[in-house]
């Protein structure tokens, strides 16, 4: 590609710049004039955030809970009536055994079970401490966690009342058991996950399709038979999607802050910088796909199957990586979205700084560099 720099009528930097800007404007025109593209570009992120957001933030009012009272004493009765009084719960008493609790969980009728052991009150009075078991259905970790917290709060309230006129503090020790999802994967994990998913889709698919479209329409032929540098073709394809994707990041963050009440705990600037890096990673993947494919359909299929599925499966956003077989755990390492997901989670939810994520950043940057070199090496300056 060296010879381009000294081609005849050597285009000076000013003309190159003008060409570049014209090309970028042309790309924007393509996007803005195609309603379908616009819908995918801006409708999809909003939809995903809202769907994921409201699927996971169920109202916890009037949740059905079951109480198994083996104690049947003063303390257990008082606690149960307090819980009944709260607007969060709808209590159904049951003298039944554990097996029946298990059944009602499986049927999805109850969200939480509260179990008082025998001698609850006497344990509390004589040993100054008593145990109480809380079992929740953690298939929906968000609700499970919230409910468990509510119950614990009521218990602590009761405990505080008891302690007002006691010389030795009484302690009720709630033993919480999260059924089905003991690790309680981060409840807000979906926002970073959706960000990774949306950026992956938008950048990879849009870039790949838009370059392949030029091939399919035959305009690539004309562009190649012109003094326009092939490298600039790629660059001018990438820039509009970089800008549009950053707008997407901003809109996702706005939605999560203002609609879902999930604040950005860390540095916003760092978050945008890392997002830009991930967008560039995705753009290079898109360019790589476009270099290797000849039709829009194939490009789209590869982008969807080859990128979206691994992102959903292996980024740790839907399925905890720790629970995967060793082989799959190793495979997750080559999924860029995994690293980005970790980065966003660290910044957004844990509020950590760059020192906590430099390793992930480095891995992502390395991937980008590798992909960039490979796709430039593969870029054809001729047909076929």
């Amino acid at each position, binding site marked *: 590609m060296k*010879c*381009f720099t000294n*081609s*005849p*009528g050597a*285009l000076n930097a000013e*003309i190159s710049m*003008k*060409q570049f800007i*014209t*090309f970028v404007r*042309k790309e924007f*025109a*393509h996007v803005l*004039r*195609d309603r379908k593209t616009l819908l995918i570009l801006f409708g999809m992120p909003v939809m995903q955030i809202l769907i994921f957001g409201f699927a996971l933030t169920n109202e916890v009012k009037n949740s059905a809970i079951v109480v198994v009272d083996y104690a049947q004493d003063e303390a257990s009765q008082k606690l149960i009536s307090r819980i009944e009084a709260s607007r969060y719960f709808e209590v159904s008493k049951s003298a039944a055994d554990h097996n029946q609790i298990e059944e009602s969980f499986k049927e999805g009728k109850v969200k939480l079970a509260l179990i008082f052991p025998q001698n609850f009150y006497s344990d509390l009075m004589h040993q100054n401490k008593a145990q109480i078991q809380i079992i929740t259905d953690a298939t929906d970790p968000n609700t499970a966690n919230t409910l468990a917290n509510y119950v614990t709060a009521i218990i602590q309230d009761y405990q505080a009342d008891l302690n007002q006129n006691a010389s030795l503090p009484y302690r009720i020790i709630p033993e919480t058991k999260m059924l089905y999802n003991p690790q309680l994967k981060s409840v807000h994990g979906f926002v970073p996950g959706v960000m990774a998913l949306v950026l992956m889709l938008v950048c990879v698919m849009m870039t790949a399709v838009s370059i392949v479209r030029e091939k399919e*329409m*035959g*305009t690539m*032929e*004309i*562009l*190649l*038979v*012109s*003094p*326009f540098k092939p490298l600039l073709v790629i660059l001018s394809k990438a820039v509009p999607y970089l800008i549009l994707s950053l707008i997407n990041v901003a809109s996702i963050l706005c939605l999560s802050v203002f609609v879902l009440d999930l604040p950005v705990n860390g540095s916003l600037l760092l978050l945008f910088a890392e997002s830009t890096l991930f967008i560039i990673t995705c753009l290079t993947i898109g360019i790589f796909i476009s270099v290797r494919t000849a039709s829009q359909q194939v490009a789209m299929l590869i982008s969807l199957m080859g990128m979206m599925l691994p992102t959903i499966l292996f980024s740790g956003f839907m399925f905890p990586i720790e629970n995967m077989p060793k082989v799959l755990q190793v495979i997750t390492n080559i999924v860029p979205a995994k690293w980005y997901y970790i980065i966003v989670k660290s910044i957004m939810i844990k509020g950590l700084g760059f020192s906590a994520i430099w390793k992930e950043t480095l891995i992502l940057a390395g991937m980008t560099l590798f992909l960039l070199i490979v796709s430039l090496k593969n870029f054809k*300056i*001729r*047909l*076929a």
Partner: protein
Amino acid sequence: MYAVKLNNLTKVYGKDKTVAVDNVSLTVEKGELFGLIGPDGAGKTSIFRMLTTLLLPDGGSATVDGYDIVKDYPYIRSTVGYMPGKFSLYPDLTVEENLSFFATVFGTTIEENYHLIKDIYIQIEKFKHRRAGKLSGGMKQKLALCCALIHKPTVLFLDEPTTGVDPVSRKEFWEMLKRLKEQGITIMVSTPYMDEATLCDRIALIDQGKILSIETPENIIDSYPDKLYAVKAENMYALLKTISSYDRAADSYAFGEYAHVSFREAINEDVVKSYLQEKGLTGIELKPIHATIEDCFINLLRK
């Protein structure tokens, strides 16, 4: 120095080694309007793509404007104009946007070279705010030609520019090519339409990757070796069958409403007529005609 020079240019495709272009050698003078005439699959597009540096040849060499198509491809890319066979502009951009985009890509502006495209552009200017995808076939071709011309190319490669265009627009298109030629632009054009061949300065007849003849259209017609007649009868099918078994006739084929029949030697029209009548044909019409390019092409093919 020739504008275009091909020296045993060869292109082979795929694993089964299909020879698309077979040792083609030809030259195009500066300022010439050169036609590459042949049916679909003759190898015209492959030749164009090699000359525009889009494909690498598998054998032989070629130069455009003196530049080697392999070694000096960047030079060729910035000086030639190319209009691929398929409509290749952006359908979602307007006429004006397409033109100004390609002007910028080639480092020029519409204003700078407006004189070159004026005659053509004026015909589509009233649609300049219409999207290119919504233009008619003829107007699309005109816009594509404008885009290929906007940077004042030294050589213009037009790959089947009139395929799929109505007869009136085709005629207009060729008139435009003549005017461009007068401005000193070398034009190499390919077409499957034989009637367009006579509009070129020189033509190369090509089939299955091989050049059959390179001549001026007049010379090709003059060198037609046989006596050609147009024959008509009421039952055309029977006529063609009868003639093909007539030992005096060198060749015969359907040609519009007539059958063209060639004879090695001068014939007595009455003898032929009576022969046909003997065979039971009625309404016979027989007249001597001048060979067209198509007749020459068929003649060369049959050799």
